[in-house]
């Protein structure tokens, strides 16, 4: 039987934990909280994954809750998005005591910044806010940032932004119940697709390793899996905008989570989807293109459009993963080294590290 065992419980935050993000290459975790700080946690003994230490507390950079953190792809910088409407860029002084220093502050959002994300190359940074806008910044030399675009098409609070794993393509999720896909056309960014389907706020999104699929988590208590169809696709899915792919929902996972789902993470290592939310439960799913007609009995979701079948199996469900508290964030370790590690953060102020055992 697959299992999810808790390796460590990390305490120190004095308010709810909003977001946990793994360093891209090292066993280092950044978490942020309503206590206006970021904590950096490091594994102290590579042989014993239950031993962790808080090495840094990033304080004083923000006046309100820090809602999200994101490591730059090279791991040199950490971006923080706060309810004080700003985005902080932090850098570690590797030469001296390893302290983090706030080297830039990005202003512009009218109010709470909800999420931030670096593009794969590290050349672009996206931010989104309750002001309904998505901003795209270009990273320049000397910790300077240039605003490339201010995207205004969401009609409500934008909850999350996520970059495609390989391309310069951005997805955003909103309180307007939609997901939007954004692309660049030389002079400005534009909305290339709007994904309708959820009946309530879309809280979180994540791409699969190939970037051809996207999972979304919603307050409507479902997860949806979307697939990208390119023009001229063999399945015959119509792509109405010239040269532009379309995203179609290929699976809806309903009847699993029985409260809002706040976070979802699609492992870039083994493809297992982790989700968690207000029902205090972490669930792991396996999503695979279904073999036509051979759907097994434990398939819990599929859609019946010909040629677009997609099966989702529930692997594990861990109830009360943060006691009776909401879980705000789940994140798979990003590479092979510890691909079975999952981090979670919740309203109890704790951060937990879990290990996924396949059998």
């Amino acid at each position, binding site marked *: 039987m697959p299992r999810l065992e808790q390796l460590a419980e990390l305490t120190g935050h004095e308010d709810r934990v909003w977001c946990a993000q793994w360093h891209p290459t090292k066993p280092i975790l950044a978490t942020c909280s309503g206590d206006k700080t970021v904590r950096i946690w490091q594994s102290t003994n590579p042989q014993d994954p239950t031993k962790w230490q808080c090495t840094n507390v990033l304080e004083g*950079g923000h006046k309100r809750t820090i809602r999200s953190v994101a490591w730059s792809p090279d791991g040199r910088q950490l971006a923080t998005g706060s309810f004080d409407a*700003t985005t902080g860029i932090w850098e570690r*002084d590797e*030469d*001296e005591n390893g302290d983090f*220093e*706030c*080297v*830039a*502050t990005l*202003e*512009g959002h*009218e109010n709470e910044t909800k999420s931030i994300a670096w593009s794969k190359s590290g050349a672009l940074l996206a931010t989104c806010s*309750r*002001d*309904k*806008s998505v901003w795209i910044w270009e990273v320049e030399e*000397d*910790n*300077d*940032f*240039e*605003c*490339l*675009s*201010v*995207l*205004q*098409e969401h009609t409500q609070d934008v909850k999350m932004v996520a970059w495609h794993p390989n391309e310069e393509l951005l997805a955003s999720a909103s309180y307007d119940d939609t997901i939007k896909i954004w692309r660049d056309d030389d*002079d*400005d*960014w*534009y*909305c290339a697709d709007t994904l309708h389907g959820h009946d309530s706020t879309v809280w979180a999104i994540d791409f699969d390793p190939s970037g051809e699929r996207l999972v979304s988590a919603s307050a409507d208590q479902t997860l949806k899996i979307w697939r990208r169809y390119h023009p001229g696709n063999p399945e015959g899915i119509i792509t109405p905008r010239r040269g532009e792919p379309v995203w179609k929902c290929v699976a809806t996972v309903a009847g699993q989570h029985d409260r809002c789902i706040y976070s979802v993470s699609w492992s870039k290592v083994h493809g297992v989807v982790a989700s968690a939310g207000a029902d205090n439960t972490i669930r792991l799913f396996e999503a695979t293109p279904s073999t036509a007609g051979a759907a097994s009995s434990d398939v819990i979701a599929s859609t019946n459009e010909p040629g677009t079948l997609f099966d989702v199996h529930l692997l594990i469900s861990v109830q009360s993963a943060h006691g009776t508290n909401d879980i705000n964030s789940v994140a798979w370790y990003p590479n092979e080294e510890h691909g079975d590690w999952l981090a979670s953060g919740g309203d109890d102020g704790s951060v937990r590290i879990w290990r996924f055992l396949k059998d």
Partner: protein
Amino acid sequence: MAFSGALTLSDLNDFISPSQACIKPVEVAKTSETQGSIKVDTSGSYYEVSQDGLETKLETATISLNDCLACSGCITSAESVLVTLQSQEEMYNILKQNKIAIETNDPSTHRTVVVSISPQTRASFAAKYNQTPIQVARKLTWFFKNLGVHSIFDTSFSRDLALLETGREFVDRYKKAIVKGVIKPPNMSADASATADSGDMDVDSAAKAPRKRIIRRGAANDEPAVAVETESAMPMLASACPGWICYAEKTHGYMLPYISETKSPQQIMGSMVKNHYGSQLGLKPDQIYHVCVMPCYDKKLEASRSDFYSDLYQTRDVDCVITSTEVEKMFGEQGMTDMAVFGEMDLDLGYNSVVKDATGHDQVLVGAAGNASGGFLEYVMQYAAKELFGVHGVDVDQGHGVQVKTVRNSDFREVTLELPTGEVLLKFAAAYGFRNIQNLVRKVKTGKSPYHFVEVMACPSGCINGGGQLKQDSSIPLKDWIVQVDHQYRNGVVARKPEENPVLAQLYQEWLGGVDTPKARQQLRTCYHAVEQNLVNPLAVKW
């Protein structure tokens, strides 16, 4: 913070939409201290019922345009107020009042009505109705005169004054900025690169400072350490765009000293019409009703600023701003939808930019060169090159004498005046649209702006694409449409330098008592006011 909601442009994404809820706490005069109840009758009126049963009708709480301007929250509420305060309806009312005044032979209620039309409006109509700008000008003159308007003017005329003043202000600032050490003078010698100018930097102590302690500006919401003085602040930022001014006042107070104090062409026209024109006709400012036709809704906000209000006469320099779109609506309301069949009428002499052609019969439009947002960058560059460095013949439009470069996107241009050695004498930029304004603000705040002058416009593509311009046929892509309107802006309009406007010298002499006199400052310059961030009413915050 947002630009006015009225600035909405269809098919554009470079626009910050307004907050949904007004956060301005409404103050209501309470009638009694004791507790009572509120009753609503069948007509929807509210009554306060005190404990002894006495009923008092309650006043409706209102939020006026001034409340909105003074508030750092949204300005969407302003829209409804604007519609009633400054609209074609209001203009109709004044014209109707005039008719009644004539019928009842009561000159005391009669007001002379003046309409000033922007060149961007002309271009918009020319493109949509397939006319030339001079035809549009003549037809609008015909249209408004038929409605009972007395004089029709052209804001390219007042823009000549705005350009002259902006150029002069820039040169003054540049010189003061050099004297005060805000900027360094360029190295005019031939071997520019050979001279190391250490300036006031203490090289030793800078080198010894521990690396880690170098605090990068912009890292922690820092305001400039030294107070920036308007008279020497660099870069100087153009002031003609009210959307930008409004945004700066509400969210970037520290940017205000950088903004040019020269009034916009609309407001200079306001001063001219109410003061100079009025005095010529023997009219007091409140006996004139001045309407401006603009490409932009935020011009309404500009007209209603207290800086442009006369307490003595209880009147504004510009009483009413209507947009190109609203003029088009007036056509429909008058039952005249096809501009092709409008009559034509010669343009009024006075504040018009028009000359006779070679035959001496037909009128030809003239106007300052430069882009369709008013040509501020072009004029100031040309003027400053001449005044500061003796470089003549600079022409930004033609690329003569300067480097013109599009940076990053089509709404950000850099124009540089260089010596043959490569030494930069003047570096100007045009930054249009919200994203580019963000970058400019950021550069100025962190001390990384390399510019001496920036023409700032809130709308992508500038005023030609203003929120109040006519909408194109839906089959035409917006980008193509902007090109068409931009073409019409220049079509048949002969370039004339502001200095060559023959009336201006006379105006300075007769009206203002010369250049840079107290009266000239009062009539041609203005100032800006940072809006304090109000404590947000927590109940109004939407989550």
